[in-house]
């Protein structure tokens, strides 16, 4: 097993180099340059000034040279500085990461805690009233544009009822609150965003669960368990559910890269300073170093997530063993 993990880890390195090289060249293919945001249609910026700005940022060199310089720095874990405001890329990411991870973890938790029981219950009596209602509801959530739902909820809970804050993650007087109130304040701000982001994803997990459960329930060992006279609850929860959960573990592994990503629309509506907006803004302003930093981070997490999913799979399912 350890040898297997080690081999897989080594395999990731060329993959990562390949991904970053391709991304680097692709983003340089997009028209426009990072200095544009300072100089575009600003009559105060002369041609000479613009050329000088490009030189200062090293943008006058060929793309291959730029890539080499960037990559050599990356080997020393130096992601460089953002073109936009000259701050360290790592610092900018560090600032945005916690809130995104927090919201994603909370909503992932919510999705599993609600989605799995819905799936199980639907599978036990397919075609029942509960099955039909829950299916419609989760698909409604899946189909509804999140920004629209968000605005409706904000307008009802925040404007009409005034129970919750409209947007953001802290109140104006946050610095003057004591710790318990600070936690309460953030929690109040998070209710709507977490709900909205979870609601749209219930469909996937509950459908997987329903499907997995249906397959398991009709299998021979479940029938055998029943024939041994075990109670229905034991059959379902001890025997069937454990096996039906196996595909869910894969999904969990594949959700790992999603933890550090965020949706631009969602974060914009709720005024949450998260990773989605950071990425979007970096692309719109052609902030090459920041885009690359985010892409490298994203690919590392994706590759690791895949690996973890594979390992977990082997661990829970004795039928699967990896060759040495």
């Amino acid at each position: 097993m350890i040898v297997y993990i080690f081999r897989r880890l080594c395999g990731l390195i060329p993959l990562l180099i390949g991904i970053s090289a391709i991304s680097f060249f692709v983003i340089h293919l997009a028209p426009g340059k990072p200095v544009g945001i300072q100089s575009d249609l600003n009559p105060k910026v002369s041609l000479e000034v613009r050329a000088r700005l490009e030189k200062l940022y090293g943008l006058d060199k060929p793309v291959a040279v730029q890539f080499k310089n960037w990559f050599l720095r990356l080997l020393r874990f130096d992601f460089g500085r953002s073109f936009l405001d000259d701050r360290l890329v790592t610092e900018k990411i560090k600032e945005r990461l916690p809130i995104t991870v927090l919201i994603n973890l909370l909503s992932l938790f919510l999705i599993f805690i609600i989605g799995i029981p819905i799936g199980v219950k639907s599978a036990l009596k397919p075609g029942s009233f509960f099955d039909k209602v829950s299916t419609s509801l989760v698909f409604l959530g899946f189909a509804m544009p999140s920004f629209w739902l968000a605005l409706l909820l904000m307008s009802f809970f925040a404007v009409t009822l005034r129970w919750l804050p409209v947007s953001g993650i802290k109140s104006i007087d946050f610095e003057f609150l004591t710790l318990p109130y600070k936690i309460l304040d953030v929690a109040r701000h998070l209710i709507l965003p977490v709900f909205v982001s979870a609601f749209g994803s219930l469909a996937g997990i509950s459908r997987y669960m329903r499907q997995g459960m249906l397959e398991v329930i009709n299998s021979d060992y479940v029938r055998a368990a029943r024939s041994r006279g075990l109670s229905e609850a034991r059959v379902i929860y001890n025997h069937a559910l454990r096996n039906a959960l196996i595909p869910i573990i894969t999904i969990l592994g594949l959700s790992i890269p999603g933890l550090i990503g965020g949706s631009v629309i969602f974060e914009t509506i709720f005024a949450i300073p998260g990773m989605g907006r950071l990425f979007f803004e970096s692309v719109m302003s052609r902030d090459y170093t920041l885009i690359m930093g985010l892409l490298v981070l994203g690919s590392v997490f994706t590759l690791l997530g895949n690996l973890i999913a594979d390992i977990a799979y082997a661990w829970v399912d004795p039928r699967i063993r990896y060759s040495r």
Partner: protein
Amino acid sequence: MSRKRIILFLIFSFIFVKSLLAEEIPSYGDSIVVGSIGDARTLIPILASDSASADICGLVFNGLIKYDKDINLVPDLVESWQVLDNGLTIVFKLKKGVLWHDGVEFKAEDVEFTFRKLIDPNVRTPYSGDFEKVKSFEALDDYTVKITYKEPFSPGLSSWGMWIMPKHLLEREDFNKTFFSRKPTGTGPYKFNFWKSQEKIVLDANKNYFEGSPYIGRYIYEIIPDEATLFLQLLVEAVDFSGLSPFQYKYQTNTKFFNNTFNKYKLPSFGFTYLGFNLKSELFKDERVRQALDYAVDKNEIIKGVLFGLGRVCSGPFIPDSWAYNNNIKLRQFSPDKARQLLTEAGWFDHNGDGWLDKDNQNFEFTIITNQGNDQRKTVVQIIQKRLADIGIKVKIKIVEWSTFISEFIDKRKFDAVLLGWSLSRDPDNYDIWHSSKTKEGEFNFISYRNAQVDELLIKARRTFNQEERAAYYKKIHEIIYEEAPYMFLYVPESLPVVHKRFRGIAPAPLGIGYNFIKWYVPADEQKYKNIIMEK
């Protein structure tokens, strides 16, 4: 009148006068929450080029001079200035006793330092252009600076509105990675407190400000990137000061709640929207064709349809009603007939009867290009498309992402006509947009406008500091450009700020409402954020 009634009358008038007086005495305290779509990028004044950074820098820093409410230049950090040697030299006398927020006195060396950084090739400032025209800079003593230009350059005076930076904090810093960009120290009415990226920037009143302490104790700049969310934040009174879209102004804020809670303002903005013709294209070489297109498009219809009436027609590239704007221009009134007639004169006529104008077997057909993400512009183009179709001209529309739009289409001159806007600087000099030497790739005369007389007038207007003389030149430029119609001037939108009613002392003027921000106040009994402690 009985004695009782006289006494009653006196009592009432006393109460009345007293309440008036209470109104007149401003109180210190409270905070203002300003809602903004975008976050600042850097608070180093000479690097800041976006509007959010400028909002904050404007409160933290001062320039040597500034614009007053009527858009005239007045002293800011200086006592006075003199223009000598026919405009070659400017001498500034600095105010004495002005302190930086850390207590050090502001002196001539700070001005010199700021200037040196502006022209330093290793500093990534976009503003060096105006300052490179300076031949020499001398600090005569701690409170006098003398600036000599290579040639007289009147727009140079307003460039000294550039915010001045403290030498003692920055001389050993690398400008491209200094702490100062996120923790600035200035001389302005507000001191920097803290900044959480994409969340908020907080400033506190500078009690020792040289024009007197501002009344509002704290300035909170909240970043709310979505327009709809920002509007909901106004509805729950979590934001005190923000801008509205024309639609919100007209249709969503006429509620009893809103009118009781907010004051809405309507001020002309410093910018205009236009349709620019690529004069290198054969289609638009003939002046009559451009005039015809101008006749064919109803500007009032656009203002009604896109801005819900919250804008005004403009005829030239200057701030409406400013000293440079020519109010005597006779506008071309909407007239499809006149348009057709001019086009026929120019040889464009529906010869083959297919409904579209043609000349030499070519239909009159072109593409209008504009940038993505601006719905107003998209609608304007559609209205123009319809109006030109009415007179037999086929217009296609192309909408392109901003960076691509600039680098692939505008810079490379690959367009027939472009719908864009210019914001207008307070100084009317617009040499870079209209002078024929500014047509190289990446320069701003991208429609390739060329007129020897305009060239000459632009230069003359730069060489004199006499406002009346300059005004005459700019009015002539205005007239020529409108006559030749290289741009179809469309409108100047209104800027539509709203401020919570508890703030008093706001007096709209040509410059807007923000110019006297330090005089805004909230009466003591209406203050909202009392728990926020001012002193740190």
